[in-house]
């Protein structure tokens, strides 16, 4: 566990701006979801924007780190879209 904590600290220190950006976007996502609670289409649009942002964030982050690889991009896309479809079942099941 010690290794994990040290790694997280190093990672956050090294890419503070990137992670702050991600956390800010996530916070805005939750606030927007709360504001437009009950408006299903808007909720889905908000979710889609956050999902898209995450993919772009991933690509941007790996470009900055000079570690961009097709496999990495595909990983972000697959995770993001899997979660999008899972939440779509709740938001717009019909």
């Amino acid at each position, binding site marked *: *566990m010690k290794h994990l904590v040290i790694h997280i600290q190093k990672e956050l220190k090294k890419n503070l701006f990137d992670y702050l950006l991600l956390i800010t976007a*996530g916070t805005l996502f939750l606030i927007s979801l709360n504001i437009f609670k009950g408006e299903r289409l808007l*909720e889905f649009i908000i979710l889609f924007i956050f999902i898209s942002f995450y993919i772009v964030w991933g690509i941007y982050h790996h470009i900055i780190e000079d570690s961009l690889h097709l496999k*990495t991009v*595909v990983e972000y896309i697959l995770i993001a879209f899997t979660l999008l479809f899972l939440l779509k*079942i709740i938001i717009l*099941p*019909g």
Partner: protein
Amino acid sequence: MNPIKTFLHHLFVPHQGNNYRAKALHIDFLTYYLLFALFLTFGFKILYAKSGDILGFATDITVDKLYQLTNSVRQQNQLPTLTFNEQLASAAQRKASDMFAKNYWSHYGPDGATPWDFILSSGYRYEFAGENLAKNFLFSQGVVDAWMNSSSHKDNILKRDYTEVGFAVLNGVLNGEETTLVVEMFGKPLSTPIAQERLTLEQPETLPNTVEAESPVTENKPVIQQPAILAQKTSPQSKNVGQISFNSSLIFLTFLFLAIILDFYFATKLHIIRITGKNLAHLIFIGFIFVGLLLLTKGSVL
């Protein structure tokens, strides 16, 4: 190592055999997850279509569960349980229908209709009456919890004077949004011989006024604002589908979160350097999605 341990080790722990990345997070497995999510999406879509629920909104709210939870809360507070009353249920049903028909989210209709009008027109003569409303919730428990977190609604649920209750859960479109409304109506029927006698003597104009004057009308109009629920006598099948779809999403999110955590932990412990997405970023992202999922289960009360 027995086969199960080997399998789990291969699935969650990065080592040479899985190219130093938990197999559960390999691109091929991630593709299977996406296909699985797509399968669930379209599977549930078909199930909803078959259940006849015209609204594209999944809820798991039932009158039975609401009744059970309400009485449970009263018992916990050493209060007598409420009896289910069909007339109050009918009044609640008509109130919910009226809200959809006239497009309002309030205890009072745009035409001045009060909750007491619905109760009286259902044939129920009351000494005390009250109403709680909710919308946009996914589960019965969420509705009752929200009411209990609001002092006015809580007062209604825990009011000693009430002896009967009726519920309605109705799906519809309110202010352009598909939603489920929950209406809970409380009452204590007129029981004194004098009151009954006055009732039989028919004084339709004075009776409601008299009753309302005696009953805590203002206190009885607690409307909860929170997530609304789809109501339209949701069929048991569609209710089950709502619960299953929510649980499926929750289980999958937990699985993915666990897989990433384990991979992250062992990769840092073993000082593995590899070209992959950032586990920390994935965890933050899934964390926000998880909170978002919980937010979606919250509605409003009035």
